[in-house]
C-alpha cells in the first residue's frame, strides 16, 4: 500500500528491499521514480539498466523492463538497447565502483559519444556489497578494508570527469537534497544526449561504521552541512578567497546541447 506514483512504478511484492537500514539508495530510487513519473513516461517505453553492486539492485524493484548486467558494463548494454530501439527511454543505475573503477572506459566513451542516456550514479564512496573495499571515490584519509591506514590516493571527481569527457548534462546532489535531486534528474531526462547525475548516498554499514558516522543521521547531517553550491564556490574563487578543503561541491555543473547519438531527427 502506498501512494499512486509509487504503487504504479514499484514492484510492491518485492518490497521491502534488501538494502541495509538507512541506506540512501532507496531515497535515490524514490527521486528517480518521481522524476520519471513527472515526465509522463509509461512503464512499457522505459528501461532501467544496471551493473553489479548495491545500487544496481534498484531496477529489480521497479516494474519496468530492466537489465541487470555484468560488472561495469551497464553503459555498454544500455548503448545497445538505445541503438536497437531509439524510441525507448533508457535510464542507467550505477554505483561508483561499477562506473568509475571497472567501467571507467565505458563511462568516458559514453560521454564522448553523447548517447541519449540518463545515468544516475549512487556514489557511496566504497564497495558496499563486497565488504567495504576502497573504491576510486573513497576520499583521502578515509578508512576502508583495503585502506586500513586511510586512503592515500586522491578520489575521482566523477561529475567533472563527465563534463570534461563531453556529457550534455552533469549534476551532483546528495540523498539529503531530495527536491533538488528530483529537479536534476528531471532536467537530465529532458536533455537529449548523455546526462550524468551523481547522487552521494550514505552507507552506514560499510563506510560510516569505519569513518565515525556510526548513526545514519550523522552522515546525512555531514552531507547537509558540508555541501557547497557550485555558484558559491565559483564566487569564492573569483573573489580570491579560500575554498574550505572539507567541503564538496553540489549543483548543476553543465547543461549544453551538443549533437547527440540515438535521438530521432
Amino acid at each position: 500500500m502506498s501512494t499512486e506514483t509509487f504503487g504504479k512504478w514499484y514492484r510492491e511484492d518485492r518490497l521491502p528491499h534488501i538494502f541495509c537500514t538507512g541506506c540512501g539508495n532507496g531515497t535515490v530510487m524514490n527521486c528517480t521514480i518521481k522524476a520519471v513519473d513527472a515526465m509522463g513516461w509509461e512503464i512499457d517505453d522505459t528501461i532501467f539498466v544496471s551493473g553489479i553492486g548495491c545500487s544496481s539492485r534498484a531496477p529489480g524493484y521497479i516494474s519496468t523492463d530492466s537489465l541487470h548486467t555484468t560488472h561495469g558494463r551497464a553503459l555498454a548494454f544500455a548503448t545497445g538497447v538505445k541503438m536497437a530501439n531509439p524510441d525507448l527511454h533508457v535510464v542507467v543505475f550505477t554505483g561508483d565502483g561499477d562506473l568509475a573503477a571497472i567501467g571507467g572506459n565505458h563511462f568516458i566513451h559514453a560521454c564522448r559519444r553523447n548517447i541519449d542516456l540518463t545515468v544516475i550514479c549512487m556514489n557511496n564512496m566504497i564497495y558496499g556489497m563486497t565488504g567495504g573495499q576502497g573504491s576510486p571515490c573513497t576520499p583521502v584519509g578515509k578508512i576502508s578494508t583495503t585502506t586500513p591506514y586511510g586512503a592515500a590516493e586522491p578520489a575521482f571527481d566523477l561529475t567533472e570527469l563527465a563534463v570534461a569527457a563531453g556529457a550534455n548534462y552533469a549534476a551532483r546532489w546528495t540523498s539529503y537534497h531530495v527536491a533538488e535531486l528530483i529537479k536534476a534528474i528531471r532536467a537530465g531526462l529532458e536533455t537529449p544526449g548523455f546526462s550524468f547525475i551523481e547522487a552521494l548516498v550514505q552507507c552506514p554499514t560499510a563506510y560510516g561504521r569505519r569513518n565515525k558516522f556510526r548513526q545514519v543521521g550523522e552522515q546525512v547531517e555531514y552531507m547537509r552541512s558540508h555541501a557547497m553550491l557550485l555558484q558559491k564556490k565559483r564566487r569564492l574563487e573569483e573573489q580570491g578567497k579560500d575554498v574550505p578543503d572539507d567541503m564538496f561541491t553540489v549543483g548543476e555543473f553543465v547543461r549544453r546541447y551538443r549533437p547527440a547519438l540515438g535521438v530521432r531527427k
Partner: protein
Amino acid sequence: MRLVIDERRCKGCNLCTTVCPYHIFQEGRHLNERGIAIPVLDRPERCTNCRLRRLYGRQLCGACQLICPDQAIYWEEDDPYAAEKVVIEY
C-alpha cells in the same frame, strides 16, 4: 488524509525524524516483534499534506516520503471525512 508508517517495511533508520519541518516523527523506544523501533507520530494531524492536500489538489511537502529509503511512509484517506481543528506552532 492520515499519515501512516508501514510497520512491515520500516527498518528503523530514523531518517524521517531529521527532515519533518514539524518534527512529527519522533524516535521510537519500543521494539516491535521484528526487533525494530518504529518512529512514533507526534500529533500527525499537523502534517501539511494531511491538512491542505484537499484544498490544493496536489502533493504537498512530502519530504518524509521521499527520504524514506524503505518506501514505508504514505497517506491514507480518512473515511468518513471529518473537519478537525488543528493548532499549529512553528
